[in-house]
């Protein structure tokens, strides 16, 4: 699959990442003007009661960033950020559910949890991107996305601040695309922005 290929019918893009991912997002997001899909960002973050990450991302994009509360309706054209200390799950009626159950891969929010839940609901209409990180979270989730017919993109480990997470994914299966930071940006802007 080419990076300029249009993914028809992508309704949901989830970007998952851990250490080294924020800087990638801060490069990808500013050039975005509008999106035709919902964008959910699941980053490993310190458990804290503040909204620093939301504020930081909202300051870097004109695409509206919505605070995620339980059963928040997920609309196209908006960015949603997984809150600290909750897993984000996807309901059949396009709402987001939160879950405080045990950590997965030492993480809450866990990328695997969101990928798996979204794969179940959105199938081929899901596009999942896994960025830099230092743990194995994300790989099992991408396997579920693949099984459900979704599109998988992994950040080129050579360009990742922490290559372990993308490497771990690539060792387990062949993603649809392995892209560097600029290419991920182009992909998000172009390929599915139709």
């Amino acid at each position, binding site marked *: 699959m080419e990076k300029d290929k249009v993914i028809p019918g992508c309704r949901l893009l989830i970007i998952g990442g851990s250490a080294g991912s924020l800087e990638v997002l801060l490069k990808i997001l500013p050039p975005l003007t509008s999106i035709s899909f919902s964008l959910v960002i699941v980053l490993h973050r310190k458990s804290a009661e503040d909204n620093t990450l939301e504020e930081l991302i909202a300051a870097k994009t004109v695409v509206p960033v919505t605070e995620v509360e339980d059963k928040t309706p997920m609309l196209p054209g908006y960015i949603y950020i997984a809150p600290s200390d909750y897993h984000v799950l996807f309901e059949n009626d396009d709402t987001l559910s939160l*879950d405080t159950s*045990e950590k997965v891969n030492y993480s809450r929010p866990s990328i695997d949890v969101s990928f798996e*839940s979204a794969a179940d609901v959105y199938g081929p209409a899901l596009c999942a991107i896994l960025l830099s990180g230092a743990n194995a979270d994300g790989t099992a989730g991408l396997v579920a996305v693949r099984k459900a017919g979704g599109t998988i993109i992994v950040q080129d480990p050579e360009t990742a601040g922490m290559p372990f997470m993308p490497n771990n994914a690539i060792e387990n299966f062949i993603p649809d695309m392995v892209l560097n930071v600029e290419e991920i940006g182009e992909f998000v802007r172009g390929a599915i922005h139709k």
Partner: protein
Amino acid sequence: MVNDRELEVLINEIYEYYGYDFSGYSLASFKRRIDRLYNLDGFKNFTEFLSVVRSDEDYFKRMVEEITVNVTEMFRDPLFYKVLRNEVLPVLATKPFIRVWHAGCSTGEEVYSMAILLQEANLLHKSLLYATDLNPTVLDSARKGVFQLRMMKQYSENYIVSGGKKDFSEYYTAHYGLAKFRDELSEKLVFSQHNLVSDRSFNEFDLILCRNVLIYFDKDLQEKALQLFDDSLSKLSYLALGTKETIKFSPMHKRYEQLNREKIWRKIK
């Protein structure tokens, strides 16, 4: 992964055999819990799983314990407790008698936290705290007032952030890795089984706390539970939810006033 159809069969069978109604649970979350259990216990196929659930009551008990999430801590979200301490308790203090309901109290950590707040405000003597859960096992544990000693460092930090001024260790006695909380804290606590899905209002309260319970319900069941809370709150009483829960998607929110940006609402009509 267990599919939607199988899940429906399971929910129906559980209701028929045990009377527990999970049909209003969040599908995404319930499915994940069932999936996790199914894999954890190494079932080979869904039919086998279903037959064990049906025929083995002990296994069913295990299932209820595993699918209901019991992650909790003392003074969870300490800043929430700070608001309770500084803004809600002074209002409740003017009442001759204070009734509090912890709905979905799990193993009781937040109930004991509340008892500590009330005691420090010199209100515990005229308070009664009802703590309920659908799971009898966690209630047995909550009644004992015994928690893991290794958690006390974290809880003590939470307590301080919540505005606590004392030495937290005054509240418990350490014994072989466990911390037993003082009996005077539990004197005003009443633990009992209550199911938000099927049971009704049983009293009128000045404060209801239901934190990180509604997230496991679908929107209809959330609405039903909120209605139950509304029926159980007198005018000018408070409802407190988890940090990412809201009543703004319910028509009920019109009769409630939110306390700044806190997840605490006051019934005004």
